[in-house]
């Protein structure tokens, strides 16, 4: 397996080198721009309830480094971009590093080509990200699934004036999802070994996957239609009678739709997917709206109201347990010199008693520091929740202080 991986990264670096030499020969545009930035984030998480499973700890001091380097030339139309990530944590599984991005990009007129590891985001809703499928989730990094692992790809984009933007992705390698270790919270009774999660495909992580997206906007409407065929990003869990968890990545076909209508202070949003595999066949959707009262105090205060309905046909097997839920929230932006903002929300199960409340707040301190506070509170989780019940005691507070160099 190791040698296979080396071959893959060998190919990627060969392609990258090739592009670089081609461009080194083309010396018409000499202005080259280098940029380097480093974020160092010290974090402290505190789980205030006694752990449900043996070995789980209550507090987690942690530090993360995110270096970024980019070099661009040809008036920014060609570039090489790198984003690394490394964290040291009390949970040895959360101590991990990743190449978030390392890609070469060339834009010419209506075309754009990217080769390497990259991050792609699709979608419009806030409480769940159904359509977004290109990158694997870095589960140890984020409860909301917004942190992703770098995905190896060749991406070709063709933007037209009349017919919108067409994106083609060739995805030669699958990344496995990260899971917390013995000491970590937000896990199942048994620690999932990343490598014990198998594949439906005989080619395993080297299955050659592909994806396509068309997106366009018509006046107030922004629309995206996508299709993905390949190793799923979400593993399917099966539980045997001994309580053992077996997990594998199925081969899936997923068609996605994302739609937003922007009218005055209203944003109307819809994300829907249809996923088909040998082991599963379901639809899921998020539909909702965002309304912003802007500049309320004539001093820049914006208060946005969010309401979203979440449906998942998988019912209790939905990995994030959002099968028939409502999300209600508010985004408060002060628009002050410190960019102070607060997002509060509650995810309420319409059939069961389960509720998850959350707060995310951030504020710049000085010119190159930032403080962030996050809280997730699991409230009256129904004992019939197959997956979510494991997190019953995992309400937490997290304070992060970042310094940017």
């Amino acid at each position, binding site marked *: 397996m190791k040698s296979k991986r080396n071959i893959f990264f060998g190919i990627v670096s060969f392609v990258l080198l090739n592009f670089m030499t081609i461009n080194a020969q083309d010396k018409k545009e000499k202005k080259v721009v280098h940029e380097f930035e480093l974020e160092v984030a010290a974090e402290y998480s505190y789980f205030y309830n006694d752990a449900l499973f043996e070995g789980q700890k209550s507090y987690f001091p942690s530090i993360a480094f995110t270096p970024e380097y980019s070099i661009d030339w040809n008036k*920014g139309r060609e570039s090489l971009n790198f984003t690394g990530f490394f964290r040291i944590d009390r949970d040895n599984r959360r101590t991990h590093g990743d190449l978030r991005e390392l890609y070469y990009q060339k834009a010419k007129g209506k075309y754009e080509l990217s080769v390497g590891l990259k991050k*792609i985001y699709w979608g*419009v809703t806030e409480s769940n990200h159904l359509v977004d499928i290109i990158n694997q989730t870095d589960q140890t990094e984020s409860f909301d699934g917004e942190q*992703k692992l770098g995905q190896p790809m060749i991406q070709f984009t063709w933007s037209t004036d009349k017919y919108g*933007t067409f994106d083609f992705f060739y995805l030669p390698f699958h990344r496995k999802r990260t899971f917390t270790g013995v000491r970590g919270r937000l896990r199942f009774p048994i620690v999932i070994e990343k490598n014990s999660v198998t594949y439906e495909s005989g080619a395993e992580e080297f299955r050659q996957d592909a994806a396509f997206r068309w997106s366009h906007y018509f006046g107030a409407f922004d629309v995206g239609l996508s299709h993905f065929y390949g190793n799923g990003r979400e593993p399917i869990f099966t539980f045997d009678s001994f309580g053992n968890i077996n997990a594998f990545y199925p081969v899936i076909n997923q068609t996605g739709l994302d739609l937003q209508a*922007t009218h005055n202070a209203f944003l109307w949003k819809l994300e829907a997917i249809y996923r088909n595999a040998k082991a599963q066949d379901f639809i899921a959707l998020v539909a909702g709206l965002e309304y*912003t009262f802007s*500049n309320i105090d004539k001093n820049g205060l914006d208060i946005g109201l969010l309401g979203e309905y979440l449906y998942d046909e998988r019912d209790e097997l939905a990995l994030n347990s959002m099968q028939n839920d409502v999300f209600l929230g508010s985004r408060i932006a002060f*628009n002050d*010199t410190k960019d102070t903002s607060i997002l509060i929300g509650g995810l309420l199960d319409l059939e069961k008693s389960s509720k998850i409340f959350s707060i995310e707040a951030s504020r710049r301190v000085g010119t190159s520091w930032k403080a962030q506070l996050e809280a997730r509170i699991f409230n009256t989780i129904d004992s019939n929740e197959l997956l979510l019940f494991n997190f019953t005691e995992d309400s937490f507070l997290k304070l992060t202080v970042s310094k940017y160099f």
Partner: protein
Amino acid sequence: MKNIVLTLLAVSIIGIANAQTGNERGLKIAKAAEKADVGFNSSTVSLKMTLKNKNGQTSERDLTTKTLELIEDGDKSLIVFNSPKDVKGTSTLTFTHKVGSDDQWLFLPSIKRVKRISSNNKSGPFVGSEFAYEDLSSQEVEKYSYKFLEEKGSLLIVEQDPVDPKSGYTRRVVTYNKNKGYRIEKVEFYDRKNSLLKTLTYSNYQLHKSKFWRAGTLNMVNKQSNKETRLEFSNYNFDANLTDDDFTQVALKRAGN
């Protein structure tokens, strides 16, 4: 009695006629200013924004702005934040429209997300500065009604009333310099209660391509809160030859990366 009525009628007709010539002259000046700037095609510029609170404490932002001139419709612009570092790469793409609300997208570099945002919030401050969103959007003639106020040498003073009820102003009093390609020297902003809110002065003008006047410094002073925001422009480039392809969501993501 009849005479009085007739006289009153005549006086009011003259008054209306005067008002109309005042309106027409104001509109004419705004159009002349627009015409003087036609043909720049596209430009790029670096911008340093210095925010000063009433105690004199300052904070800075660095941005780059690309603009594409459109004749039939409003201009397109792409703004990228370079500092503060925690928001580096945050970018906006705006398609201004002469009539109706603008189309605007925001790129968030931390999760690589492009989000269509409402352009409803005109009166709100841009990143905590004394500039409202409407102060920084492309100034199209159609967005105001006009009233000529006075002429002082080469300076022409025109009142502009925003057409959009969502504007934070009842009126703006704009000073044009007719001898310098109708460039703007000063703008006074009156809030919804019609009291003076802000004054904006343009200085360090430079002539580009022997036609286009661009101020090097814009200083906005809030007369009610005593806060200030200074914009300093540098590295104006009118030879970038940008096209529509440089103002797409794909280009927005590229610029913010």
